């Protein structure tokens, strides 16, 4: 039991507890705040597993950008709609998750390679970037096109929403001249 394994188990407990708290909250805003804690723990775990660049990306993008975006959107809803309960079939969902978890545990521990102890190693950001743009430059380009497509889709959805709002306004004026 080295100091690294102690750090791993502490981080695993932090991530699991904060994720569990996040998925059981009724208010989405609390869930997102707990999820930020989980993502910061994940970033530390990535640093431990030898990916310092990805740890920085998780802090900047996941915990910083995506979660703040979700928080802003939650603030756009009315207070009465922020809190909604569970689906009536949540028991089935829990059963599905437990079955999935049991199968995962069975598969992982059936594999003799799972007992192999990981050795510490770290990828320098320079080597990682060179590898990425040397071998997977096409995938990087495809991902950039994906982000562009997402941007266009969001603009289109927002435009349609504005048009619908104008129509509603017009209808309202017709009803109440």
């Amino acid at each position, binding site marked *: 039991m080295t100091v690294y394994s102690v750090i791993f188990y502490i981080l695993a407990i932090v991530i*699991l507890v904060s994720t569990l708290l996040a998925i059981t909250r009724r208010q989405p805003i609390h869930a997102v705040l707990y999820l930020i804690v989980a993502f910061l723990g994940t970033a530390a775990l990535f640093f431990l597993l030898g990916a310092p660049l990805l740890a920085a990306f998780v802090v900047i993008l996941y915990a910083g950008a995506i979660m703040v975006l979700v928080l802003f959107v939650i603030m756009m809803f009315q207070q009465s709609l922020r809190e909604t309960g569970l689906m009536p079939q949540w028991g089935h969902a829990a059963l599905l998750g437990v079955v999935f978890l049991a199968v995962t545990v069975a598969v992982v521990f059936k594999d003799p390679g799972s007992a192999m102890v990981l050795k510490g190693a770290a990828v320098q950001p320079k080597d990682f970037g060179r590898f990425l743009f040397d071998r997977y430059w096409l995938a990087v380009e495809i991902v950039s096109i994906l982000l562009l497509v997402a941007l266009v889709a969001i603009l289109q959805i927002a435009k349609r929403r504005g048009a619908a709002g104008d129509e509603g306004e017009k209808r309202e004026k017709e009803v109440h001249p």
Partner: protein
Amino acid sequence: MIVPFGHVFLLAGLIFSFGLICLVAHRNLIMTLVGVEVMMNGAAIAFVGAALRWHLMEGQAFMLFILAVAAAEVSVGLAIVVNVYRRTGSIDPDRYDILKG
């Protein structure tokens, strides 16, 4: 030196199943998106652990692509949720019954 490889995968599987439960069980579209984020987090942990297990950088490269896909997915998803909320005044998927005769 750090931990057995199975423990990393077990952590990833636990987080993924938490996300699965959150995705199916909540009556709120925002919590559905949160569930998808949690599932992607679990997949990312599995990829980075596998990258260390086999000393291949492909796992970390895929983590980067997961990050980009998650960003695209959550932004489009939130735009759709806001659009649907403006039209129906609700973010409960059970209330979307405009087409019901």
